[in-house]
């Protein structure tokens, strides 16, 4: 489990971020988008917010079994 690198603020302690949810499968029904959760063991796509920093929303790819953070992308501003 390492730090989470906010693309804007740089590497920060994980306690500064809040997890929102794992992303639903693309194209799923409204029910599935809200209630179902994709539980991949080693490659989880998630939305987080850097609440104690720039308050930016991030797309984070993590390995929930090892705790490693694989990739972070800033969402706002039409970036992706």
């Amino acid at each position, binding site marked *: 489990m390492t*730090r989470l690198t906010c693309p804007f603020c740089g590497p920060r*302690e994980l306690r500064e971020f809040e997890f929102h949810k794992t992303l639903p499968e693309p194209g799923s029904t409204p029910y599935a988008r*809200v209630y179902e959760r994709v539980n991949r063991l080693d490659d989880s796509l998630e939305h987080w917010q850097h609440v104690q920093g720039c*308050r930016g929303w991030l797309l984070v790819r993590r390995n929930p079994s090892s*705790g490693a953070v694989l990739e972070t992308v800033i*969402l*706002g501003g*039409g*970036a992706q």
Partner: protein
Amino acid sequence: MNGTQRRGTRLTDTSLRFTFDGREYCGQVGDTAASALLASGVRAMGRSVKYRRLRGVLAAGPEEPNALFTVGTSPAVIPNVYAPQLELRDGMVLKSQNRWPSLKYDVASLLQVGSGFFGAGFYYKTFIWPSWHRWEATIRALAGLGEAPGTCELPPPAVEHFSCDVLVAGAGAAGLAAARAAARAGARVVLCEREPVCGGELEFEFATIEGRPALAWVDATLVELASLGVRVLTDTTLVGGTGGEYVAHHEPGGVPGANSVYKIRPVAFVIAMGAVERPIAFINNDLPGVMLLGAAERFLARYGVMVGSNLVLFANHDRVYAAATRLASAGMRVCAVVDIRDSGALGAEATAQRATLAQGGTECLLGYAVISAAGGSHVRRAIVAPLASPSATRVIACDVVLVSGGWGPSAHAGLQEGGTTRYEEGLAAFVAMDQPEGRENAGAANGLLELPRVLIDGAGAGTRGARRAGADGDPGATPIASGDPAPRLVPFWRSPADRAGEKRQFIDYQNDVNVADLRATLEEGFVDIEHVKRYTALGFGTDQGRIGGLLGAAILAELRGEPLKDVGTSRLRPPYHSVTMSSLAGLRVGARLRPMRRTPLHDWHLANGGVLEPMDLWMRTRYYRQNGPAVFEAGIAEAQRVRTSGGIVDGSTLGKIEVAGPNAAVFLDSLYLNKASTIKVGRSKYMVNLREDGMVLDDGIVLRLADDRFIATTSSGHGGHMLSHFEHYRDTEWSGRGVTVTDVTESWGVIVVAGPQSRTVLHSVLGAAWQPVLDTLTHMAFARGAFGGQDLTVLRASFSGELAFELHCRPSITVALWEALIAAGFKPYGLEALDILRVEKGYLVSSELNGETTPFDLCMDGLVKLGNPCVGRDLLDRPAFHESDRPRLVGVRALDGKAIFYGGAQLTTAEQPNRPCGYVTSSVYSPTLGEWVGLALVSRKQPEGAVLDCRDPVRIGDCRVRLTSMVHYDPTGERMKS
């Protein structure tokens, strides 16, 4: 044993007085509680948890399982302080633990008699009748070690977060070599050491480094480290951490006090925390006077204490002879060295030392074992026998038995974050491996015990750490050294014993786990080490298995007839050493648990009789003392005054989000049930938004400042969630599409002026410029201007049902405006009164918007029908939300117009008295209507006018109520619109 002319590296000549169990002793500055008591001839220092056996000090570090003291006088005592770590101070008051009435005479120790009765897990098999709870009080009184503190006056710790290139934990030979190499290479190094002094085993080992005695080398190295800017933190233990940030805990003097917590983020981390010596199990190996070999050496070297006069040493490796030589040269008589190995196993150096010892009169027995120790309250005799014929025992008179079964590397830190272990044959122990990037073990922690190899390993780790941090200077030559011989250890875990003897061969001292317990555990099918640990409490003590964990696993392997490497040890969990709770709590203690958010009027409320209460992180005024003896009366008086003439309330905690940009309107449409895009500039609308699952999330007024600019107000309690909710949709679905979201909660103080006289008072306060505006402002419209040179928005909106105006003004003028209104004759009211006014009007707050209600439940069908597609809308058509008994918001009053009922009462029908059909969400005494009125969420099957039982068994009991319309007062709202 006279303590006067003791010479130890830590000692000074100044003497100290302290008391232990009421008796006065003296020690010297630099002594610990353990060293001073040993020097004063005290042996018994504690009692074990389960059998309460009398115990002496076993080890010389925080892994000490027996000698734990309670420090200080009740009620402000500190329990379970490790005697070998507790630095003595003049006048210190120490008490032994877990004994009544005294350490020497403990009544409950009679339990030992029935020790067979109380084998491992006995309590699972008994105390079933009449019930466990009946026996529990007695058992809990017997259990536990230290005294429960009644008060605690510890200051919060000093906390420091910082980065460095190379963090080295442990300042023994390996750690010093690592720190020096890294620092010389130009890296920024931090070295933390658990003990007050550096050097580790170098303190007593026969060792020369770079041609100098080891301790001289240690001192020289520390001087060099200082010159290279290395930060050396003594009395500082590496206790844990997550994600590459490591936590070191500084507890000076070994007792909680002015502690510090360091949060260190290194590029590279070298674990050089050494190894922990383990005992060999023999009968009565817990008698006071049985001690680990290394402990005796440290007491001698550091504190000048001779732990006994006549010693018997018992080991399975060559280093026992070097130790015997040192102890003898200090004047202690080494009666015998009992070595389980045969002569072929010894190295040259040990053979020579053995010969010298023999000439000095020491019996050097090979192929022998100490079968048992004896002597009543402390060691007086050791019974030895050849391993070949264990019954051919011989007695050797002695007052101390020093035992050493080898060393277990401190693998704790190395096992976190993916670390695993490998079995090291030569050590008969497990070493941590598979370390994450930038972390490695060095020296004894890496399974190396010979000084030359320890120094090479340390220097190598330090250099690799420096390189990883980009420091490419010359780390200098690895120090040439010579030290105690290679152990040439032959694994040996316990001396021969019959079944009765096995009951007194102790493995985990603190919880009295003996060999017989392991045998019984196997009998009951608890085979895996994790099961054995949980069943017998092996490794549950404050030492967390440092003393008995490996020993227990090895003996379990022997009983299972399997190799130790297949049995393994139980999983080591953080913290790596016990940590004082006040240090863990850091700065968030007392009033600092969380910051207190203050409105611009906070100080005025405090100065003018305001009684403030927490709401989220804010503090809000509940009522003003001058309006009544308590909240109930004051609330009624303040509410009545608003209805009759008027009053002002601080609404600054209202959440305010400014949404701007060309797509601001359609963005808000996508989040709210009703449309923001239809609001005309200069007007506002009551808006409701949904959570993703269709439940109502929040409601509030949205003002349109311009075509492309709105202010959305949110309820105070939901502040954080609403802002994140807006920001989430703005950053995902609306990313880059001309919408911006800005929190402006603190940019505007809010003063609500409510009551029939509110317009008149505002006239007098706001002055002529505002005259025409105030007279023409229609309901839900607002005007923007200034007051005292700062922006002021006046919004005509009412939460009390009276004519009311919300003044949104900059914080710098909020107090001035408020005081002007006070001067103009309006008095303040608080939340209690606000609640009365809004319940009378049937307006909603978080008790109704509680995350469980759909818009239909809250009678907002009209808003849903408008068909505005928004977040949460498409899950509203789920069948449950349209069932006949789905709740609906209604008004509620006492049937007789007099009865009292509160929010939280349940509503039942006569037919189903035990299955509520609804509950009262809010209830107030209405001074205007002269009775209690409330709001309730009740099944749709119950129409308006229905009479129900209002059940409140946990408070004031039951009464009968009838359902009414939600609006109890001025249903047409003409007072508000006048």
